[in-house]
């Protein structure tokens, strides 16, 4: 489906470009060809379609066939290239058009029906400004009138896109384009100029910290592995992103897989690993396909395999498909899974950096951490150390979703306030009110409106009881019930707990039961039931603290975080559920109380017959009523009523 690199392009890259990749100087004709690969000047129109997991759901493939059909019908000569995602998920499918002599311009929400009108306009040199979202800046081309430039758009202006620079711009399946945009130069440079020790030092100086949630200094981890005297070391890239609501790594790989491959090769060189493994969930078919293609292309041009660029350093990268377990994000569990065992964490130390896969030193880094390395090597550790705050350097990618008015992938410099995330997402949808920002998935916390000025920082946030997590952010509005949300997270943890240590296995189960109990209407108000319910509520906080202090791995230790924070920030909501049995967002279905509108009820008796607890009374052919004490909130009456007379409050 893709415009992959042709044989000629691959051999051009291999023979003409790569020998001089380390200093970036080429003869004029090579430079001209590279410029053509960047599509700086085009002879015939190019149409770019953003194809990623997210946009495919929005219908990008249908749009692409519609475009091809259009070009066929009107015999227009144009190239159709597929690209990654700009991070503007709500505006997908995004189609960009580049006409000869004009700047590249992007259109949002291009459904197959709109293809004709948009392409008709663009090809004939007429665009309605309301259809387009932005255009690229170019000195040599004539801009379109009335359309903002990409760097002027508030969404892009607010961000610092270092890692996402190429996302949405280049074709992910083309190594030639990636190199034309400056890719693999860091690798060529380091392999010629630096020893592995130098790169390790550069990363230490830059102050890079792990992006997966633990925030451990990357350089320190590498140094530890380097200090073990052995010939075999492994590097594992953890791409098993499984936080519900986090899709940073997935979209990054799908949009710019070569950047990930370059990061892996460079980091493997730095820890002198003989083998690198990418651990990625089997479900992410498109992501696997793209990273595998990038690896194959790197082998083809000689950037991977035996004797890379004549340096004597050899490396193989293998893609291993994760069979799906949340706990495998934990380093020791991930190693167990690679060894063909159940993914159960073990006690540290020994750390994997000393005793990891097959007993060899193993460095495990998140995708986003590794992607930073080429930038640091290219621009120097001082450049990186100047970005961000005292303890947290560089940029961080966030995927913002939930009830935000636009779902997006953004990159911010450390030190920006948390509120910036809400601004970028465009706040909440019209007519709703903002409730909280949930950071870091099932082991994260919800941040209320008055905490939004806290800076994004690995050290500053924990002081305020907030943890940054791996970058998944959910915007919550007034339709969200906090009790239901933490119950959902606890349900997730309960399912994903590996079962090795008791606090996590039993604690998560018990905690789920307690939360389930308070979001349900008790069957009877007497004796045992009520006692159980209140005992649970009293125990909730203690249990959470026990789990936090005694669990073996990060999964159990952080699992009670959402509950503890929600109990602090949204205590009134919990109390409402417990004492008043009321859910203000009407999400807890069992707590709803139903009533019959006497104006609409015809007394047909249908609901009374269906009611499982005989809570509906009345005389036939006159309005019925519901006895609140007996109602269990099942909602059958509402489904049964043909006249729409049953409501809930």
């Amino acid at each position, binding site marked *: 489906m893709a415009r992959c690199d042709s044989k000629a392009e691959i051999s051009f890259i291999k023979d003409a470009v790569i020998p001089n990749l380390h200093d970036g100087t080429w003869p004029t004709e090579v430079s001209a060809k590279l410029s053509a690969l960047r599509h700086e000047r085009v002879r015939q129109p190019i149409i770019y379609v953003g194809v990623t997991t997210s946009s495919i759901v929005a219908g990008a493939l249908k749009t692409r066939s519609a475009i091809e059909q259009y070009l066929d019908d009107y015999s227009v000569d144009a190239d159709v290239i597929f690209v990654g995602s700009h991070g503007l998920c709500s505006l997908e499918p995004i189609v960009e058009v580049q006409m000869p002599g004009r700047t590249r311009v992007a259109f949002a929400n291009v459904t197959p029906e709109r293809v004709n009108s948009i392409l008709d306009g663009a090809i004939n040199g007429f665009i309605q400004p309301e259809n387009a979202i932005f255009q690229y800046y170019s000195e040599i081309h004539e801009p379109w009138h009335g359309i903002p430039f990409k760097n002027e758009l508030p969404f892009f202006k607010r961000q610092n896109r270092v890692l996402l620079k190429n996302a949405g711009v280049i074709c992910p399946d083309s190594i030639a384009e990636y190199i034309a945009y400056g890719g693999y130069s860091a690798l060529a440079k380091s392999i010629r100029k630096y020893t592995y020790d130098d790169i390790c030092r550069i990363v230490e100086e830059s102050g890079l910290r792990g992006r997966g949630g633990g925030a451990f200094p990357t350089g320190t981890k590498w140094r530890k592995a380097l200090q073990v005297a052995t010939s075999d070391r492994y590097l594992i890239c953890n791409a098993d992103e499984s936080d519900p609501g986090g899709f940073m790594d997935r979209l990054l790989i799908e949009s710019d897989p070569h950047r990930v491959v370059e990061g892996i090769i460079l980091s493997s060189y730095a820890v002198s690993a003989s083998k690198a493994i990418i651990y990625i969930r*089997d*479900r992410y078919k498109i992501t696997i396909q793209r990273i595998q293609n990038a690896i194959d292309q790197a082998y083809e041009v000689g950037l991977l395999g035996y004797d890379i660029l004549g340096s004597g350093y050899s490396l193989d990268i293998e893609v291993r498909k994760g*069979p799906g*377990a949340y706990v495998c994000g934990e380093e020791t569990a991930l190693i167990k899974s690679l*060894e*063909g065992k*159940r993914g159960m964490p073990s006690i540290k130390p020994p750390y994997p950096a000393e005793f990891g896969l097959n007993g060899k030193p193993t460095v495990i880094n998140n995708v986003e951490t590794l992607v930073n390395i080429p930038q640091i090597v290219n621009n120097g550790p001082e450049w990186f150390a100047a970005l961000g705050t005292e303890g947290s350097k560089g940029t961080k990618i966030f995927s913002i*979703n*939930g009830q935000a008015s636009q779902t997006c992938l953004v990159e911010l410099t450390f030190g920006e306030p948390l509120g910036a995330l809400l601004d970028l997402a465009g706040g909440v949808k019209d007519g709703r009110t903002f409730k909280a920002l949930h950071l870091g998935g099932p082991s994260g916390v919800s941040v209320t409106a008055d905490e939004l000025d806290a800076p994004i920082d690995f050290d500053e946030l924990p002081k305020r009881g907030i943890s940054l997590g791996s970058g998944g952010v959910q915007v919550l509005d007034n339709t969200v019930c906090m009790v239901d949300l933490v119950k959902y997270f606890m349900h997730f943890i309960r399912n994903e707990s590996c079962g090795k240590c008791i606090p996590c296995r039993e604690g998560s189960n018990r905690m789920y039961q307690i939360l389930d109990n308070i979001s349900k209407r008790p069957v009877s108000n007497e004796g045992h039931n009520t006692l159980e319910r209140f005992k649970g509520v009293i125990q909730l906080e203690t249990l959470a603290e026990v789990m936090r202090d005694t669990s073996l791995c990060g999964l159990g230790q952080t699992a009670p975080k959402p509950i503890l924070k929600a109990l602090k920030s949204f205590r009134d909501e919990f109390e409402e559920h417990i004492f008043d049995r009321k859910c203000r967002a009407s999400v807890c279905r069992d707590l709803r109380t139903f009533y019959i509108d006497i104006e609409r009820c015809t007394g047909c008796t249908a609901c009374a017959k269906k009611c499982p607890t005989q809570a509906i009374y009345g005389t036939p052919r006159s309005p019925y009523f519901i006895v609140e004490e007996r109602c269990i909130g099942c909602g059958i009456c509402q489904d049964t009523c043909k006249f729409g007379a049953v409501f809930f409050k």
Partner: protein
Amino acid sequence: MSNAEKIEEILERYSYLGSDSLIPILQDIQNELGSLNEEAIVLVGRKLNMPTSKIYGLATFYNQFKFEAKGKNHICLCNGTSCRLKGAKWNMVYLEDNLKLKNGQTTRNGQFSLEVVTCMGACDHGPVISVNDEYYREVDPEKLKNILNDLTQE
């Protein structure tokens, strides 16, 4: 080709058979047969020289491996945080009420099977479901009912 032959063929693809190739082998078998069964794990155990109980323990640990055959229409329902907030819960309730279908189960007539997954990466378009790899966005019980109706009529 019988199932046993298919499994033999997959096992032959792996030149080095150690415990670290166990997960890829099981993944390949599941891709080929749609689900794992007793025959498969016995054969794999014999080849890898591993107790069947160990393999069964591993396969039931991970979410991916299934021992129940997939239905004619395999429904993947996203229950990521975003889809959940947007109402994936009601779709699950609908399936449970109407088709008696819970996560990991197949209906008796073999028409539908359900797999609840966490996050398909399409958070803006939630709640998302996919049926036989065809995606549907912004699905509510009403829409779900229509989708299922269309599928049964085919």
